[in-house]
């Protein structure tokens, strides 16, 4: 057994609605994620992707079932600060400038100032916001805000990176560029990445495996291994195998 294998076992999640009703978000979800794997979660809106991510990150306790990461509980892993999360909506602190928003988790992890500055510079550049470091979030466009959230998680360089539709507000080109950058980072750092997206080509391009969830209640409806060569570059997108995978996943999706 290796570093950060994630085992999701019989996870059920039932929310209590405001009016006392039960909202079943996840139903008996089972999934094993290997260490250093890049895995994508796909599924219609409201099927429980965010919920599953939050359970893995110990931001939510499953109603029943369990998640273990290399034999430890998500809580243990969280306490060891191994998670980095890109939230679905960027979750920025209004009172901090862009740079200081990116800096925040590093401050908490007591990363030395110099190192922090270097990382901020690097990730800001990566997400194309070099010139906006000293603005406040509300002065930025939606897509720019989203990129701050991405930069913040990347600057942290966590062992397990959970990304919830990180590129949804970005144009195709920025998105493709960031896809490649992300893969480079992943290759170098060997993180485990769980990546939620609605973009099927994106999931194929990035992942070792694509997990398709079906809604109401959320359950795993298909797991597709992506046996495409690595390192992957933008040329991959033109290859027929690529399209086969996209088609295959689209199909498994349609059954939903």
């Amino acid at each position, binding site marked *: 057994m290796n570093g950060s294998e994630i085992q999701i076992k019989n996870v059920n999640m039932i929310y209590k609605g405001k009016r006392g009703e039960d909202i079943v978000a996840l139903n008996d979800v089972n999934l094993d994620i290997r260490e250093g794997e890049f895995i994508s979660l796909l599924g219609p809106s409201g099927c429980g992707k965010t919920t599953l991510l939050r359970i893995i990150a110990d931001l939510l306790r499953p109603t029943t079932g369990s998640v273990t990461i290399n034999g430890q509980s998500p809580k243990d892993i969280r306490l060891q600060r191994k998670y980095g999360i890109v939230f679905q909506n960027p979750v920025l*602190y209004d*009172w901090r400038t862009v740079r200081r928003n990116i800096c925040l988790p590093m401050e908490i992890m007591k990363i030395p100032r110099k190192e922090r500055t270097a990382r901020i510079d690097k990730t800001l550049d990566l997400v194309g916001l070099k010139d906006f470091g000293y603005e*406040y979030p*509300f002065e930025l466009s939606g897509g720019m805000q989203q990129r701050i959230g991405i930069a913040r998680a990347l600057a942290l360089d966590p062992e397990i990176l959970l990304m919830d539709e990180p590129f949804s507000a970005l144009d195709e080109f920025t998105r493709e560029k960031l896809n490649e950058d992300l893969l480079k980072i992943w290759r170098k750092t060997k993180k485990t990445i769980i990546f939620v997206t609605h973009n099927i080509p994106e999931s194929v391009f990035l992942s070792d495996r694509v997990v398709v969830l079906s809604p109401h209640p959320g359950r795993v409806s298909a797991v597709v291994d992506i046996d495409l060569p690595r390192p992957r570059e933008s040329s991959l997108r033109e290859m027929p195998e690529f399209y086969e995978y996209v088609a295959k996943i689209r199909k498994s999706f349609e059954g939903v």
Partner: protein
Amino acid sequence: MVITKKERRMVAFVWFTSIFVLLEVLAFFLMFVMKDTMAAAKLPFPHTIFIVFVNNWRSLLEAGVITFSRAAIGFGIGAGVGIFLAVIMSLSKTAEKIAFPYLIMSQMIPVLGLAPIIFNIVRDMNLSRIIIAAYITFFPVSVNMLSGLKSVEQDKKDLLYSIATSKFEVYRKLMFPFSMSYLFTGLKIAAPMAVTASILVDMLGSRGGIGVRILYSLYSNTTDIFWASVMTSALMGIFSFYVIVIAENLLLPWRRGASKKDGEKV
């Protein structure tokens, strides 16, 4: 709508004069139309108060300084305690459930009942006065701060939670900055209240202060000094309020922008 400094000054001037004129008219009405024998006590002419104020400005200023400085100290301590209690209550729902009813109860103990106990514990009049001023001040700060701390959105907390941030850091980096605007709302209520609290503790046998002037003038039926003192306390309240407003603008730059954006309407 962005209001310029000049406009604001004009608005303040218009408000001031119209209140002045209104009170003049009311006082006139009371005295000469209603022929109320107590008119001078009920509502003296504002200009007479103003004249008394000017004639006694030295002594009122002296008294004001005593009262205001005590108010400032009491406010400082009260705000500190208020914030502290709010933090404790926000740390645990149980603590809140335990503490809040008792905080309400504590506010029901009048100074007359409390003062002897405080004296007995501290045995120093001046310190006792400051403690009592703080005791009167802390509550609104606490309530507002608590409501700020409780209004922090879950996803903002999740961000820090996900990297196992210590409680201390969560408060320092998130809860406090987020609650600042709530806190300042509380402080804006508490600051003028600290003036009233300080005036009240002046009456605990203090040698000087606006409270002493008010008490003595009531007892000796010197209505004009009474009203001038009341006016002084009101002015001190406005002053303290503006101190908080200015502090807010200095300390919360992101809010100025955010609210301007909302107000910047076509």
